[in-house]
């Protein structure tokens, strides 16, 4: 088991390296940091453009491979280089990572927990009213892109805020800037900022998981060993939850890993729409600003996160499925 996980870790490392290399070269080919300077008025002399670009290792006159080697050398020492404006990517990343991780953590936990609950509920009540309700809900939210959900949520929050006369929900930023007060007040403020973005990202996630879980559970419910367990005198409840659900969760670990990439993309939209200063929003900004280093750094971050979720899924699978542990 340990050997298996170590082997997976080694493969993951190779994947991260290939993925970020690919991202770096692609970004170097498609983006032109120089165009930011050339469009300026009054025109900037070429030598000073060169100096500025070379200082941040984004000069397209330097061969790509040379720039890549410099960049990798920095990354290996824990330095992700500089943004086009000459700021340290590490410092900015330190500020942003927490914002994104908070969103992703809450989104994946709530999405998985409620998705599994709704899915199991739907499977147990197959074709009854509650199952149809869950199915209709999930179909509806699966069709809603995050950028559409977010606007609807904002609209709903606006109505509630106006009718109550208080600001219950905030929909810009992750905290009120410059707010002072007790720890409780600060936490409450964060919470009020958190609700809408979390809902925007979680609703679709719940819908996705509940569909998977429902079908996985239906597969298990008809199986012989559940009937045997019931014949031996276990209650229905106990067989469903101890024997049925545990087995039905095994395929879910795979979907957890796969849907994590989707979650990250969803978080990107959420951050951008609710003005959260996270990694996803930074990625979008970096493409608009043609900043190669930032695009590469955020891609590296995504790759590591996706692989971490795959690793987590492997561990969960091993916990749930004894066959994985012994083979």
């Amino acid at each position, binding site marked *: 088991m340990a050997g298996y996980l170590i082997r997976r870790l080694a493969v993951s490392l190779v994947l991260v390296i290939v993925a970020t290399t690919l991202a770096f070269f692609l970004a170097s080919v498609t983006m032109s940091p120089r165009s930011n300077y050339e469009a300026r008025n009054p025109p900037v002399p070429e030598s000073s453009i060169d100096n500025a670009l070379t200082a941040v290792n984004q000069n397209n006159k330097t061969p790509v491979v040379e720039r890549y080697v410099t960049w990798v050398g920095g990354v290996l020492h824990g330095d992700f280089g500089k943004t086009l404006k000459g700021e340290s990517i590490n410092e900015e990343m330190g500020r942003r990572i927490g914002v994104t991780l908070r969103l992703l953590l809450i989104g994946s936990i709530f999405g998985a927990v409620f998705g599994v609950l709704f899915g199991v509920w739907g499977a147990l009540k197959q074709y009854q009213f509650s199952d149809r309700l869950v199915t209709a809900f999930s179909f509806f939210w699966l069709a809603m892109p995050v950028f*559409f959900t977010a606007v609807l949520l904002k609209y709903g929050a606006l109505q509630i805020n106006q009718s109550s006369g208080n600001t219950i929900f905030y929909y810009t930023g992750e905290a009120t800037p410059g707010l002072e007060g007790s720890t409780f007040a600060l936490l409450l403020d964060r919470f009020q900022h958190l609700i809408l973005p979390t809902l925007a990202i979680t609703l679709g996630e719940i819908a996705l998981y509940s569909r998977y879980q429902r079908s996985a559970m239906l597969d298990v419910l008809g199986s012989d060993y559940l009937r045997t367990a019931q014949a031996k005198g276990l209650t229905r409840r106990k067989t469903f939850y101890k024997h049925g659900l545990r087995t039905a969760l095994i395929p879910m670990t795979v979907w957890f890993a796969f849907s994590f990439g989707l979650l990250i*993309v969803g978080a990107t939209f959420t951050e951008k729409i609710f003005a959260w200063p996270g990694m996803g929003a930074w990625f979008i900004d970096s493409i608009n600003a043609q900043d190669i280093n930032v695009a590469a750094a955020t891609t590296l971050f995504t790759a590591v996160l996706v692989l971490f979720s795959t690793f987590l899924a492997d561990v969960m699978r091993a916990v749930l499925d004894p066959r994985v542990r012994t083979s």
Partner: protein
Amino acid sequence: MAIEPLSEIQHNVEGEAVAPTTTDDGEVLSRGRLIWRRFKRRRSAMVALGFIGLMFLFAFLGPLVIQWNYEQIDPTSFLEPPSSDHWFGTTQIGQDVFAQTLRGLQKSLIIGLLVGLISTSIAAVVGATAGYFGGAVERVNLFLVSLLLVLPDFLIIAIISPRLKGQSWLWFVLLLSIFSWTLAAMVVHSLTLSLRGREYVSAARYMGVPARTVISRHILPNMASFLIIDATLAVSGAILLESGLSYFGFGIQPPDVSLGTLIAQGTASAFTYPWLFAFSGGILVAIVLTVNIIGDALRDAIDPSSKSRAAL
């Protein structure tokens, strides 16, 4: 002389293997009718099918009928709410929102169909060759699959997108197709592994049928149900991905419009001028919803016994 009979045998083998799926019309029709009858039983699916048909009619015939072009500017009405002149209202610069929505709908539908078709084909080829040949081919293909899982399609296309400016939208379709086949390829791979050991595949192989033919004639047709369903769901996935990328300006480039760019333009004033946002957004959600419903009903109709993979 030794070669002649062999080629004849090959021909016979192929003919035999193909017979039940293509030449025997009665067989095909009855299976098709069976699926259609099962599909018809789902009222929601029939409604969805009707709706999609209607959307296609709107998107492709609508622009011929209405008096406004999507780029045309009506200097007498800026930011007007829906009226008899402009059914969906007008934009800040006096463009007809109805004409724009039809144009966006047209783009999104074409892109969805093309990408669904191409990406499913890529998934079939990559997954089937990996499963059939094994060895190095399998390792390379599966590495590609895991690489694309690590780099979400949205990210790569966004990184490439600065190059899309001023290019034909077909490049965008190509990008969407070549980066969104990974999950389906994994399923095709595992299905191929289970089909590879079947007697008829071994028989074809020992008779010298080339690998290409074995895959296209014996392996892929046997997972046609999965491929059809996947292609359907890939359409809705592609429409969502396209609109997401276009929303950020990484997809369809102005002056052309898609539902994504329209929603992006309308978002800022969604509360004050709701017609800029509500129509394109509502239609996008409705299309994705109906395509998903059709895909779901199609799976139940084609393969009533399969509950696994019945998730999406």
